[in-house]
């Protein structure tokens, strides 16, 4: 039987003024397993702790109950104290006599009775405590960043600057993401490429950063400190070790297909470097377009490559790597407005373009070398309509959320048009104008002063009449229909999570919100963490945001990663679930209840009657389990149990309180 010591704290007069602490200590003496009980003015003080230690020695105590303030206050203090004794730090329970007794009651007799009850509960629980031991797991000092946009680049640079190895996995042939497609950034009108490409170059050249472009994460296992990630390297058909990026092949390739980078507004060859400043600046072959690969014809690039870097027999390669932490920065994609808004032409009118297409249009390195012209006929538009909230804030047709960046880039686009095309008119249909950022409101004001006409209302229809796009909407402020004859329409389309986000989330064992943005661990206090320890997020994979917010989040995530990687090993909480595999039926009911995907079914040697068999049972991954106990209540045999809060312990508490 246990030998329990009970220590009742007066907490000065905080507890003692309402609770008869001596009586509580006296009552504790006759509780099951109690070998010693006393009260003292301040248990958490030096002398108080010394007294507990002495009592442990003198009375051979093996378990401790302290009646004091909330365990949320001093549980760690007392655990630390026990580390210096023979008593395991987890053979401790704290009865909350201050916050949940003395401070909330006035009747001394009743409060004392309740205090006795609470102590009895803790005594009953501690009697069933088992010694627990934290274990140390080694940490692989290397981080994985999924996604090579500005978020991923920033996070990788920050982590690498702390001295840790980082691998960036990017599914496209180059890092850079959406930011390099942009022309200028609001509100400062910096050249987007001018500020992002140096970062790309830094990332490419950083000794601690490994770029894995044209790669995808195939599978992830393990847990914080020790993720094992399989990375799939797609077929580039170009040996990047040999290739110098001279670009000769690009110029000779006879096949031309639509350029993703230019948002479909220009063409690129089948062997291509996506854009001039790409990092790495080496081409890949588009296997769906290449004549050699599709029809076994051509083969020009192989012939002309001076280094023999072309390899049509390239195969998908898988590599396994260990990482200590993972940053998810998979970014966004523009929602397909064509499906959502057939009334805007559904894509039939070339001159109805997205904001991102406009960025390419206005960009000096874009398809028109920066001239704003209509894609249909190359004429300079005079009347331009910008429609905001296309897909955003429209739960019926699109998304219910606000895409956050559109108000500002629409203002920027208006400014750019008014600036570059003299005599042009810009009409902006809006629902609200949201400018919560430094210098944002001023920028918006300036745009209005430039002459942009803001019309509050949604656009109901866009159709073509002769050369013009007729934009019909309603001015809801004036309460009358509006019709604008435009040369070009720019749609500020909603952001949505990158395609295949479900796969990424599923592989990582993290979760998404209703709109498929990745769910942060806590919206306020843990905004860059996921529910899975060691997996962080930044940028637009978490939700729509602009560049400064993205970069700030990336640095925050990097700091979180660094805080893990700076340790050689980490302590795991011993208060996690474990399975009594002799009793487990292997039904797997616990598996779907775990938010961390910490439970898996494994085959172990077992017994069927007296026969030896291999049976399937549940197993808890100690690195993943966070100790919520949700699986416990799903287990009908009661064989999966949370250490420190076992079913038996809680039942004992129930029994004790019901006495």
């Amino acid at each position, binding site marked *: *039987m*246990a*030998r329990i010591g009970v220590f009742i704290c007066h907490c000065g007069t905080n507890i003692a003024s309402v609770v008869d602490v001596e009586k509580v200590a006296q009552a504790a003496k006759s509780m*099951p397993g109690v070998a010693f009980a006393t009260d003292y003015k301040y248990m958490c003080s030096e002398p108080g702790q010394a007294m507990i230690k002495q009592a442990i020695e003198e009375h*051979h105590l*093996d378990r401790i109950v302290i009646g004091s303030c909330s365990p949320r206050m001093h549980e760690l203090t007392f655990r630390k104290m026990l580390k210096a004794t023979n008593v395991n730090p987890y053979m401790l329970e704290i009865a909350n006599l201050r916050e949940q007794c003395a401070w909330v009651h006035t009747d001394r007799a009743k409060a004392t009775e309740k205090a006795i009850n609470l102590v009895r509960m803790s005594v009953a629980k501690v009697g069933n405590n088992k010694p627990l031991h934290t274990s140390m797991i080694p940490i692989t000092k290397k981080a994985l960043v999924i996604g090579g946009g500005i978020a991923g680049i920033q996070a990788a640079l920050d982590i690498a600057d702390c001295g840790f190895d980082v691998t960036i996995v990017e599914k496209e042939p180059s890092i850079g993401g959406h930011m390099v497609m942009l022309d200028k950034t609001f509100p400062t009108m910096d050249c987007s490429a001018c500020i992002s490409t140096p970062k790309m170059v830094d990332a490419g050249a950083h000794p601690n950063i490994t770029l894995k472009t044209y790669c995808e994460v195939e599978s992830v296992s393990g847990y914080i400190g020790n993720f094992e990630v399989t990375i799939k390297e797609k077929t580039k058909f170009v040996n990047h070790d040999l290739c110098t990026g001279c670009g000769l092949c690009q110029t000779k390739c006879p096949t031309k297909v639509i350029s993703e980078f230019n948002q479909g507004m220009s063409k690129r060859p089948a062997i291509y470097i996506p854009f001039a400043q790409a990092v790495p600046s080496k081409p890949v072959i588009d296997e769906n377009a290449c004549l050699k690969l599709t029809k076994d014809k051509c083969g020009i690039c192989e012939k002309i490559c001076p280094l023999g870097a072309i390899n049509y027999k390239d195969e998908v390669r898988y590599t396994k790597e260990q990482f200590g932490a993972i940053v998810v920065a998979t970014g966004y994609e523009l929602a397909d407005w064509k499906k959502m808004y057939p009334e805007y032409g559904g894509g039939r009118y070339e001159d109805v373009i997205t904001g991102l297409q406009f960025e390419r249009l206005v960009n000096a390195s874009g398809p028109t070398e920066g001239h704003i012209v209509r894609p249909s006929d190359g004429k300079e538009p005079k009347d331009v309509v910008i429609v905001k909230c296309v897909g955003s804030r429209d739960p019926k047709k699109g998304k219910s959320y606000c895409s956050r960046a559109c108000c500002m880039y629409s203002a920027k686009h208006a400014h750019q048009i008014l600036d570059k095309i003299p005599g042009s008119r810009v009409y902006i249909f809006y629902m609200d104008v949201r400018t919560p950022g430094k210098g944002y409101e001023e920028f918006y004001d300036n745009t209005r002063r430039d002459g942009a006409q803001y019309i509050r209302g949604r656009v109901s229809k866009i159709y073509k009449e002769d050369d013009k796009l007729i934009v019909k909407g309603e001015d809801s402020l004036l309460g009358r229909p509006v019709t604008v004859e435009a040369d070009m329409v720019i749609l500020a389309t909603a952001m949505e999570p990158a395609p295949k986000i479900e796969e990424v989330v599923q592989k990582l064992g993290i979760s998404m919100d209703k709109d498929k943005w990745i769910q942060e661990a806590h919206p306020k206090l843990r905004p860059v963490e996921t529910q899975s320890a060691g997996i962080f997020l930044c940028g637009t994979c978490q939700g729509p945001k602009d560049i400064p917010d993205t970069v700030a989040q990336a640095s925050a995530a990097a700091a979180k990663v660094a805080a893990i990687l700076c340790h050689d090993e980490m302590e795991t909480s011993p208060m996690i679930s474990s399975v009594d595999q002799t009793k487990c039926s292997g039904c797997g009911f616990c598996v779907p209840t775990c938010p961390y995907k910490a439970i898996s079914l494994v085959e172990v040697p077992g017994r069927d009657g007296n026969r030896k068999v291999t049976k399937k049972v549940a197993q808890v991954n100690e690195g993943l389990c966070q100790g919520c106990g949700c699986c416990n209540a799903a287990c009908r045999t009661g064989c999966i149990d949370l250490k420190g809060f076992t079913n038996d312990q809680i039942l004992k508490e129930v029994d004790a309180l019901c006495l």
Partner: protein
Amino acid sequence: MAIDHACSCEKNPLLPSLCRVIDVKQETPDVQTYTIQTLDGKKPFSPLPGQLAMVSLLGVGEAMFSITAQGEDYIQSSIKRTGMLTDAFHEMQPGQEIGIRGPYGNHFPIEDLKGKDILFIGGGIGIAPVRSLIRYCLEHRSDFGHLDILYGARSKKDICFKEDCLENWAKEPDTSVYITTDVPSDDWDGHVGFVPSYIEEVGFQPEGKKVVLCGPPIMIKLGSASLLKLGFAKEDVITTLELRMKCGIGKCGRCNIGSKFVCLDGPVFTLAELDELPDEK
């Protein structure tokens, strides 16, 4: 009813008497020996070697254990940690109140053993019942012939009753002690090997010798085979059985093997007797 049973509880055989653990000794990492006394400092009862006691940790549960030794004013029982109940036993400290009832079961056939050489074979915690008989024989040394004691444990640290096994018994007159461990270890320079093979290695002679064999089921099975190979008769090999028990007085039903109840008609059986019973051990 050939066996006469003595019961310490005159009235209610299922009612334990309150006793106290006066000493706890850590024999091995998972075996402890408890010295038990009545509250007024007396011996709870006087068991014969091989008998059992139902030890009950009030509020936790009770289980049957063999009595490994007794003195003027105490009895001793050794308990190996195997489950929830024995975990709780292992938390006992001197002064702990427990309930105890017994002694139950038959005992080693002392009269049959008198005047004979005896070979004691124990494995693991199986040495506990054997020890009660060894102690009896040593106390009544002149009644018995040569004593051989063979004991096997997993490793040196798992040897129970280290003083007896490694020192005291070897010093007794006309007594040979053989100790073996299953696995070698740095601090062990004695014999290494399993009990059955050691039996054959030593090559005990069956003439005029009775064998007392206690240990885990597999050891009893293979050990018996070794003994039979050496020419021992089944009538001369005595062993003990262990089954789940609740009442200890042959009423609750679960420890039967055929028509015999291990708690009442056992736990001591010769191999010949076991042959008569259905194969359900």
